[in-house]
């Protein structure tokens, strides 16, 4: 392989990974903007979606239906988690909420382990066939599915948040919950909705990547972490920027591993991440201490 081909391949795999991170990152942003919670258990929604879809398909369910069921169940679990674990503690501090989601992560992971065991499960690609050659890179059909579905999801989210009253009221809750209550918007229902959306996005991510990477009960944490990275770089607020940041992170990771050393893959990725965070923070500090303290309180 020539260097050009290699770089093209690194870019392709970086973009695909980044797209998957983005689906998790979007869920994190949905939850955070509505409930100020950083959801450590976001990756478990993906694991749930992946495992459920692969089992259903193995049992003979058509793939499209299995995918829909998996996404639906993940959404329901998201809503259920909010209702049982987050709502009772919604006035607690961010650290407490973080620990609660860590507890959720453990419980969900344990439940997945109980149901599916430690063995990995596989799911067949959405469409069969050999990989395609795009420019100098080789791309599997499933990767194209990932990108296509994510694009559709983005469009749907955009329409939902800017064109529908439900989406607008969800945004309103995120922007100013007190004012939203004064408009008669039931903030807690909207929070539950945000968790359901996050659950669905996570489940969808799981269904999409199961054919690429196999599904295991403990696949969630790393995926969620990488989505978190993108979401934080984008400030935990903006959906399109989260997607951009996640894809960027995927590409940096892939290029770093490819051009420098695969042994240092995560080291390079997180090194770049820390540098980016510091650059952002220092830029804020240049304006003065007040600005950065207010930024911290978000």
């Amino acid at each position, binding site marked *: 392989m020539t260097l050009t081909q290699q770089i093209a391949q690194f870019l392709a795999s970086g973009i695909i990974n980044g797209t998957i991170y983005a689906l998790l990152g979007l869920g994190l942003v949905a939850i955070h903007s509505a409930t100020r919670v950083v959801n450590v258990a976001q990756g478990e929604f993906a694991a749930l979606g992946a495992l459920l879809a692969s089992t259903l398909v193995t049992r003979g369910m058509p793939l499209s239906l299995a995918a829909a069921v998996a996404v639906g169940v993940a959404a329901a679990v998201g809503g259920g988690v909010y209702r049982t674990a987050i709502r009772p503690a919604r006035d607690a501090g961010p650290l407490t909420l973080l620990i609660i989601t860590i507890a959720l992560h453990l419980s969900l992971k344990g439940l997945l382990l109980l149901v599916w065991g430690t063995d990995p499960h596989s799911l067949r690609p959405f469409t069969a066939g050999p990989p395609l050659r795009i420019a100098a890179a080789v791309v599997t059909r499933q990767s194209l599915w990932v990108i296509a579905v994510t694009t559709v999801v983005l469009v749907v989210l955009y329409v939902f948040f800017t064109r529908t009253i439900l989406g607008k009221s969800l945004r309103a809750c995120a*922007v100013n919950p007190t*004012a939203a*209550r004064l408009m008669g918007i039931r903030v807690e229902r909207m929070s539950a909705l945000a968790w359901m959306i996050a659950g669905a996005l996570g489940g969808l991510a799981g269904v999409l990547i199961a054919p690429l990477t196999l599904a295991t009960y403990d696949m969630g944490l790393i995926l969620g972490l990488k989505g978190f990275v993108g979401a934080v770089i984008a400030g935990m607020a903006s959906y399109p920027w989260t997607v951009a940041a996640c894809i960027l992170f995927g590409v940096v990771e892939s290029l770093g591993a490819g051009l420098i050393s695969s042994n240092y893959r995560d080291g390079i990725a997180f090194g770049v991440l820390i540098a980016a965070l510091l650059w952002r923070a220092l830029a804020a500090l240049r304006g003065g201490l007040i600005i950065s303290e207010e930024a911290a309180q978000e």
Partner: protein
Amino acid sequence: MNAPGDDVLLAVEGLEAAYGQVQAVRGVSLSVGHSEVVAVIGANGAGKTTLLRALTGLLPSRGRIMLGGRPVARPSPEETVRLGISLVPERRQLFESMSVRDNLLLGAYHRIGQESRAAIEEDLRRVFVLFPALVNRTASRARTLSGGMQQMVAIGRGLMARPRLLLMDEPLLGLAPLVIRDILGTLAQVQHQGQSILIVEQNAKAVLGLAARAYVMEAGRVVRHGPATTLAQDPAVRAAYLGGHVESAEG
């Protein structure tokens, strides 16, 4: 105190509310009639904002709240807005990253599904008639507007709920005198259309010109009440709230 009667829209008796351990409203009784503008004046920290938060259910309270002759039991903001009480909150509390149009539309949130789209669109037009300055800014994000325009959006949003009673918390806070004049004019217009308003304001001079009656709060209690014109002449009120202050108070 006016006895609750047919002409009384809101009647509050013995309202008590606390912020944590601090008792901020102590046994307040007041009333608002149909199509009446009533003002509550007092210094910062007198309990005026707490009073409004208690009325909308943002804060738990004890005491009796009657709206149109019916008791409002255990109010919550989601309920009270459906019952017809809408609050234009302190410091406007707009949805800053959303457009002016969306802000106004969300004001009618509880009517969506109950009423036709046309009715809501009609009310949007009504708001733009009241505040023509907003017409060219419908797509602008609320945070990019000037303070005065933001206050117009906040009032418009409150009106979009089509409330029986509009509560306003310090609507004149930090506005330039010219803008204050505009807003007072609009409020008078709204009142002529039959809107009942309970307005809380530090800027006593401005609201006493608008309101028919007024209550004076100090340390969580109503210490005086009566027709606005009478209170405006009251030497004690003049000394405390009219003499030293300038119109534009800031918080």
